[in-house]
């Protein structure tokens, strides 16, 4: 992990007439960043690795939670079958007037290959969550162990300021719970029961959603985020909310 980010020292060592592997990788990475920007549009401001997704030093070498739950969405694999949404509704008793996850559709009429692409969205479980900052009663909070943005329903006063603050439209008011509801990475229904995957990822036939522990170098999410061959980005990175939902293609 350290060698990935420790470029300052290595750049000097690698500076020679023959391009090193590292220089080739840097060049490739730069190309991927540019490609990513073009593919993602203005708001996505793509990044090619976790260093840029987490620009602060604190997030370069370690993740603040253990397990540090995260999800990588392999966007180009999504076929909009909706099974993730069905599984989420069933597992978490989501009413018909709300959603915890959904799939956005983008039309690309001038594209030479596929016209439509699909972008699954859910709560980004931000490390710097605007919803938590704005909640007057701490009804929504960042769990100190696993980092999931949770709800303490009994404290929710229904002011809906968290809905205003969330940059990802991830919250709605649930009449049955008498509180704001949101994705909790199936913590209540699965993770806290000893299971280790979330309903939407389990239900996906195309393996779009990869859920896991970003603090574990052996996990799939870690390896997908910490590679240089494919672009990895987050939604609305300019807000500095530090999401734990990553997107990739290819």
């Amino acid at each position, binding site marked *: 992990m350290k060698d990935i980010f420790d470029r300052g020292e290595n750049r000097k060592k690698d500076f020679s007439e023959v391009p090193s592997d590292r220089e080739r990788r840097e060049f490739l990475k730069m190309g991927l960043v540019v490609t990513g920007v073009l593919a993602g*549009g203005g*708001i*996505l401001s793509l990044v090619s690795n976790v260093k840029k997704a987490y620009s602060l030093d604190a997030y370069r070498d370690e993740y603040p939670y253990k397990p540090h739950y995260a999800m990588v969405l392999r966007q180009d694999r999504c076929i909009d079958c909706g099974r993730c949404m069905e599984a989420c509704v069933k597992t978490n008793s989501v009413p018909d007037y709300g959603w915890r996850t*959904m799939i956005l559709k983008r039309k690309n009429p001038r594209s030479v290959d596929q016209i439509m692409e699909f972008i699954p969205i859910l709560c980004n479980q931000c490390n710097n969550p605007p919803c938590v900052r*704005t909640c007057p009663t701490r*009804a929504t909070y960042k769990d100190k162990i696993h980092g999931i943005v949770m709800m303490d329903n009994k*404290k929710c006063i229904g002011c809906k300021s968290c809905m205003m603050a969330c940059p990802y439209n991830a919250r709605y008011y649930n009449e049955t719970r*008498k509180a704001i509801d949101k994705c909790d990475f199936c913590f209540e229904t699965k993770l806290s029961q000893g299971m280790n995957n979330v309903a939407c990822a389990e239900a996906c036939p195309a393996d779009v959603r990869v859920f896991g522990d970003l603090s574990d170098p052996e996990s799939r999410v870690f390896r997908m985020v910490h590679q240089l061959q494919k672009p990895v980005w987050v939604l609305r990175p300019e*807000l500095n909310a530090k999401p734990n939902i990553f997107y990739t293609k290819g």
Partner: protein
Amino acid sequence: MALISKALMSPAIKAAYDRVASGGRLYIASLIFFGVLLLVGLAAGVNALFITGTRHVYATYREIPVALLISTYVFFVVASTGICLVSSLGHVFGVKNFVPLAKRSVYLAIVTILAGFLVIGLEIEHPFRMALYNIISPNFSSNIWWMGTLYSFAVVFLTVEFIFLLTEGRHRQAVIAGFLGVVTEVAANSNLGGVFAMMHGRPFWYGSYFPVYFILSALITGCAFIIFFVFLAQKIHQKPMDSATARALESVARLAMLLLAVMTVFTVWKILTTSVGSPSAATAMNALLIGPYAFNFWVLEISGGIIIPFILFLVAKGKNMVMMFVASTIMIFSIFFMRLDMVVVGQIVPLYWDLGVVEASELHRYMPSISEILVVLGGIGFCALAFLLGEKVFDGFKK
């Protein structure tokens, strides 16, 4: 003890009752009318919160989670801050011309905060949880927590100040309580601006503009409310305005003109800076300038909120009270919609607008529901009822 208090209070209460009862037909009819409005508004809010559910009777939804009721709350509490600030120029900061406004203004500041609390109490889903968890589980990083807490303290300080103002020989204590009231009102007001200003996912709101704008806007609203209610008070008491009060209103009108000029500069810069900002903020501004909110903006906010009142104040020269009353009425009406536009337009651009997805390709729409309108009328009913009763109970806030 009860007998003693009854013996002491009875004459005062009886006198107040007599003043109310002898107010005349129009006065009594107004009391009944605004009382009914208050009850209907309360019924609509209670139905929404505890019987039918807000999702079924309020027009807010996931993408526009707050709208008319929050903007009405903002309207009332910002007015309270303004009334408090303008009147404090006299009885706290010693500007003589403003001194005659003190008692009535402090009373109006309390009434308008309570009207705001009434409306927001019928807007949030669990007002009783709020009363409990705001105290036992506070979030000090939340602007909403600070805003609510500071406004609650402001009510206490203003009430103490009002009691001291009514009590002989307590001027010094009244000034201290008044000063604390002004400080908490301004801090609460600025935090209210901060609620919107710190929503960095909503570019139309985000930035340092709103906390400052809210104080300026409060002062303008305060001027309008004071002129409006002082004029009406003279009509209720059916007496000509005394020269000190007339001079005070002249000063308020001049202050209003200055503030309206400053507001024009603020508005121009908000338009210019937002127009070159993020696509989302620029789209929202576009909706305000030439889109679905253009009528509200140009006719109400700009013409009714700034230009027409400025001209009327200019022509009235601080002497023509009827013209000043008309100006303040137009201002109050327009400012109500100014608040609504600020709250709604900040949310009409979908959060995924820049992503270019089908689901976020159109602006969100909002049209208030009957229940929301009734709750607003309930707030107005409370405010008017409290004003009418206050004029008689406190006997025109005489010295």
